[in-house]
């Protein structure tokens, strides 16, 4: 599904990704771990199409199509979803109206009519139940005054509504208490299928207790320096990142 080769990127002439490669197939869950400043969020933002970065080399393909020239919304229409580490507050736009607009704009891009209001309401009800989201919450302004946990749950709610092919969860576990973590993880697990894929970016093993990855990658200094199965995450949790840094020397 996703194929990244030799990706190099910089911001303000500071190089952040240094020849990163990653391949994710349908039905797989990949975890990307690594110390602060390794380039994890940069990778997520570049895949989603944020233009603050300069991509100097390499390629990103989604289902065989090079997406590097696509705008963020075009990438979203192709099925890429990024759950933000820090979801943006948008006062004056309710959660419901935002997601309606997002879905109908995506449908429009595909030449489809707006989703009938009845279907939309039904879907909103189903997906909000899945994530144990209160009705009242849906009429509040998007992310405004939300707790950390509410923001992340709202991200996964939007993911459930948009049904992406490739979901990137950027530190979705940060700011979550254990109950919220369980709800979010169970939501993600229910949305998983053989036709989509998930990339989980995290510092800690604890989210991976709930969303079990098929592959774990260690990102360090803008490159993937080690890959393994779920047991690698446990090893990192026990030993920290220093042993990997030493291995590299």
């Amino acid at each position, binding site marked *: 599904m996703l194929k990244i080769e030799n990706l190099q990127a910089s911001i303000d002439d500071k190089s952040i990704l240094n020849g990163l490669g990653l391949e994710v197939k349908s039905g797989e869950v990949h975890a990307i771990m690594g110390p602060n400043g390794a380039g994890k969020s940069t990778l997520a933002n570049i895949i*989603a*199409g*944020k233009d603050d970065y300069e991509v100097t080399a390499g390629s990103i393909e989604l289902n065989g199509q090079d997406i590097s020239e696509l*705008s*963020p*919304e075009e*990438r*979203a*229409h192709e099925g890429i*979803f*990024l759950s*933000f580490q820090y*979801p*943006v*507050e*948008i*006062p*004056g*736009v*309710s959660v419901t*109206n*935002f*997601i*309606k*607009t*997002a*879905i109908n*704009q*995506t449908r429009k*891009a595909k030449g489809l009519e*707006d989703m009938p209001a009845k279907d939309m309401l039904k879907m909103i009800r189903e997906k909000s139940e899945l994530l144990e989201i209160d009705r009242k919450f849906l009429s509040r*302004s998007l992310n405004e005054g939300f707790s950390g946990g509410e923001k992340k749950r709202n991200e996964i709610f*939007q993911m459930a509504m*948009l049904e992406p092919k490739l979901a990137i969860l950027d530190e979705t576990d940060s700011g979550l208490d254990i109950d919220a973590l369980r709800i979010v993880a169970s939501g993600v697990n229910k949305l998983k299928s053989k036709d989509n894929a998930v990339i989980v970016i995290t510092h800690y093993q604890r989210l991976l207790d709930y969303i079990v990855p098929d592959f774990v990658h260690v990102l360090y200094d803008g490159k993937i320096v080690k890959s393994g199965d779920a047991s690698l995450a446990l090893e990192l949790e026990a030993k920290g990142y220093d042993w990997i840094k030493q291995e590299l020397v």
Partner: protein
Amino acid sequence: MELKDKLLSSYVAFENRVDTNSDVHEIRSKALKSFENLGFPTKKLEAWKYTSLNSVLKEDYSLFPNKGVAVELADVKKYFIHDIDTYNVVFIDGKYSSFLSETTHENIDVCLMSGALSKPKYKAVIDNYFNKIAKQDNLTSLNTAFATEGAYINIPRNIEVEKPIQIINFTTGSDAATMLQPRNLIVVGENSHVQIIERHQSLTSNPVLTNAVTEIFADKRAFVDYYKIQNDDIKASLVDNSYVEQQSNSVVSVHTFSFGGNITRNNLNFFQKGEYIDSILKGITISEGKQHIDHHTLVHHITPNCESHQDYKGIYDDRSTAVFNGKVIVEKEAQKTNAYQQNNNILLSDKATINAKPQLEIFADDVKCSHGCTIGQLDDDALFYMQQRGIPEKEGKALLMFAFANTVLESVKIPEVKQRITKIIADKLGVDIGFDL
């Protein structure tokens, strides 16, 4: 001939056609003197520092358009809020159009200024209210000197007017350039409620200059909601001078939606003459091209225990320029005043300008006065967030602008007006997003 001289020299012929023997004539003559002394405002005046009328004063305006050209309802229906039942007071080139109007004298008077100024039965009201709060200044005086036509609305006490009243001034451009000076008088009695929608609409691409004056009197416990829709042709300029006087426990709100036109200047003045009054001034301004839109507001807190709430949002693109000057005066006697002023501005272009000036003059010591003024741009992170969810850049920007302006939009009490404003904004931003926030 310069416009000022043209106006002055036409006055003699004008005054012989109208009320030479009435009290109003006295008022006219004084007003003309005042205008003669002051002339048109120039940038040397503090209140006009950022707004120059020079470019529009150069035109050779027809001052008394001869005959209203016939207008087909089908062509102008879109300028009405037509999906609800309303009273309509409609003028074409300054002349009353009975065809497009729906007036009434049943319990209330919704009719014409020309009639009110000339017929004895209105004399008491005219004596009490006409030109009582309008200032003796340059443009208001000019209007007073030549005022003959406009809407006359008199609501006696204890009446809830069951449908909104629309005041619409059309210009057809049968002359090369037209100057209009509509004059409205609105008197709302004790415990009465009324909603009014006002619009100036040019149907031609010829230059139009409108110098309007509206006086509004709200007696005790009266409720007045006034909506000004300014979405005129790019060659039409407007100076709107509005004066509101409120008595105890009355609530008056004026919403000004400024989207179109060439030069638009709003002088909106509130005078509080009782206790527990609430004055609400709100506006959304969206400008582009070389438009210039200026809001000068004044809230004069004269008496204790009153409130005022101002909320003006502006979004400026291209080379457009804008002004917000919000003046609040709290007199020494006006203790326990609660005056609130919010003015937020977004510049979409490097070449756009906003001159924002909150101006608070507080002479009482036990008051709550707050004001917030911001100038910024659209939030890039919010835009990326929206794009990531599949909302294209243009629609995302529009959504952010709607959200920004929403505090003003949501306080519009007539749903059809709110829908119309939303539609005008969407059209102006070139998007088709059918959401309500």
